[in-house]
């Protein structure tokens, strides 16, 4: 698959996420619920607009893609079934599928390891930060 144009990426995000950004009514309940709100540069209630406008590159290179905790609070509470968490996760996957998009390098690991670190943390981080 190649990502040559913006429409293609927008379509991919819609397909991967299975969610329809046009349903968003900007109520902001996602941003109100998000535990990572302050860590994010693009806020959850803005995800839909970025995709509608086609500003996918910005979303892909945003901090937000790596700051979502996948805690599903926004998905559970979204009154419009837009599920911003799914949109940003799709963006994260697109970023990872592109060359050099990984957020975690193998060399980093030893430094980050702690004695009592559970395997779950490692596998989750790998799932979330790398292809």
């Amino acid at each position, binding site marked *: 698959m190649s990502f040559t144009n913006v429409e293609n990426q927008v379509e991919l995000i819609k397909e991967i996420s299975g969610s329809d950004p046009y349903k968003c009514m900007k*109520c*902001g309940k996602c*941003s109100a619920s998000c535990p990572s709100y302050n860590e994010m540069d693009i806020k959850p209630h803005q995800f839909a607009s970025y995709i509608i406008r086609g500003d996918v590159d910005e979303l892909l290179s945003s901090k937000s893609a790596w700051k979502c905790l996948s805690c599903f609070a926004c998905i559970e509470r979204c*009154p*419009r079934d837009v599920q911003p968490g799914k949109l940003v996760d799709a963006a994260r996957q697109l970023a990872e599928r592109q060359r050099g998009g990984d957020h975690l390098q193998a060399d980093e690991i030893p430094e980050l390891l702690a004695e009592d670190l559970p395997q779950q943390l490692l596998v989750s981080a790998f799932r979330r930060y790398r292809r």
Partner: protein
Amino acid sequence: MQRIGVFVCHCGTNIAATVDVKKVVEMVRYEQGVVFADDYMYMCSEAGQEKIIEAIKEYKLTGLVICSCSPRMHEKTFRACAEKAGLNPYMVEVANIREQCSWIHKDKEEATKKAVILARAAIAKVNLNTPLKEGESPVTKRALVIGGGIAGIQTALDIADAGYEVDIVEKEPSIGGRMSQFDKTFPTLDCASCILTPKMVEVNQHPNITLYTYSEVEKVSGYVGNFDVGIRKKARSVDFDKCTGCGECMTKCPLGKIGHIPSEFDRGLKNRPAIYMPFAQAVPAVPVIDRENCTYFKTGKCGVCAKICPSKAVDYEQQDEIVTVKYGAIVVATGFDIINLDKFGEYAYNESPDVITSIELERLMNAAGPTGGHLERMSDHKQPKDIVFIQCVGSRCDNEEKGKPYCSKVCCMYTAKHAMLIKDHWPDTNITVFYIDVRTPGKNFDEFYRRAVEQYHVNYIKGQVGKVMPQPDGSLLVQAADLLDGKQIKMKADMVVLAAAIEPNPGVRKIATMLTASIDNNNFLTEAHAKLRPVESPTAGIFLSGMAQGPKDIPETVSQAGAAAVKVVGLLAKDKLKTNPCTAQCDTLLCNGCSTCANVCPYGAITYEDIQVNDHGLRETRRVAQVNLALCQGCGACTSACPSGAMDLQGFSNRQITTEVDAICR
């Protein structure tokens, strides 16, 4: 052989933009029976109708096909037009080339082709049409209003003032409805009971109005002008005629202090005794015994109320009573409730007594309410200093398990009202309203909302709240995002008020089914036409008033109630109604008296009689079906059930429908 005229309407550009009208005229000109075909800009206009009348006379037309909008729109118009020219109105058929063709198709060629086919089907049908004559049925000059809230009260008063008898059926012990629970009303801040109570009293005293409170509609049969309605008068356990409304029984009921029976009227913020009136100004001022909770009914012991009643009005033996009354028209004014908030756990409504709904706030601010009008938290009875309002809780919600897809319409305004009333009484209170959009269309409405901001300094923040978290210190932490400032907010509050979505009264579905009145996915009653017939149900003789039809505020409800009343009066003013001539007919030569048709007829319109027939010289007595034309509503159930093909429906006969099928499949 018919002489048919075909008239194709442009409907301005509504049809002509997508259907080649001229071509349709050319294509149908040589269909069987067609002697004249023409097109015109607006067929329904006076000039258009004039054209039809001229053609009928000039070409001696015996049948008409109008290719235009839906027959549900203008069939009546064109039938009347035919009648004017001396043609039987039932010789008219409408081909729906607007709603079913030009409005939904883009490709002109394709749409034109379809329009021709639809016209052909109508022409084929008219070839088989026969003149039909409408029957007449009498009108019972009495109306029923279901629901005794402000909508039902206003409708009943208007009908009664016009000189017709009207009954109100209300399932609660008193009329008054939701409005009687409110404190003040927007946008003028009059006290709700000050403007409602006089109307309630007027209803009670009006010679033309009969009240059935604590009663429910149980059964409906009949049709427009002639409904038979069974009303269940639930046992009040108090003799209506003897009770003076002194209220002694209510103060002495032992359960009043220890019963823990939540008052429905006070939304559970206060308890009530087992023998009770919902509120002090109840109409009628006669208490009822809540048999489910009453100690006497549960254990056979107690009997205090009967003992102390000075007029010996308490009657434990009273039974439910069912009365059947005839009506000419029925108005549904069943009102609304707010949705259950169990699915909105994030707002901690079930967890914290200090998270309340707006209706509960109405009660808390009402001088006759559980706190005597002093605003206090239910947890510690302290006056709240910081109050947060959350809008759209369950409104505009796409998740049907949780909420409703529509805007509840009144919340923005009543929230501004609440904010201002609180600030008026307790100016030190800090009020924050979290909104998605502030919607204030209406006369003096936006000014009202702006006053809350400009004069009362109510803090409006755009952004739906994410979560309300009860804190160890008894406060509530409200987590939200200010979307315009781009900040996440955590704000402490003493009280949180939820603007819960409005939904039609849950009982309305049962009533709609009994009335065969159509109802939408959200349980709002459907109007006959969204714009032109907004207070009528598609079912003849059924009218709509108030929230049962859709969210609306009090001024709108009152206007609609008046409009429904006018429609009812218009109906009752007639002595006779024309009946639908499209009724079933039995071909006695084919009928073998099997009773299948009578079993499926919903109106009991089919009876049997013995006739003498001469079958090839053999004289015999045969049992055959007979249709009572006054009862038959023309559904045609008998026609498809009849095993011998003896039953047929005038206006939609087997041959007519078959020929339509043939024309479409040609």
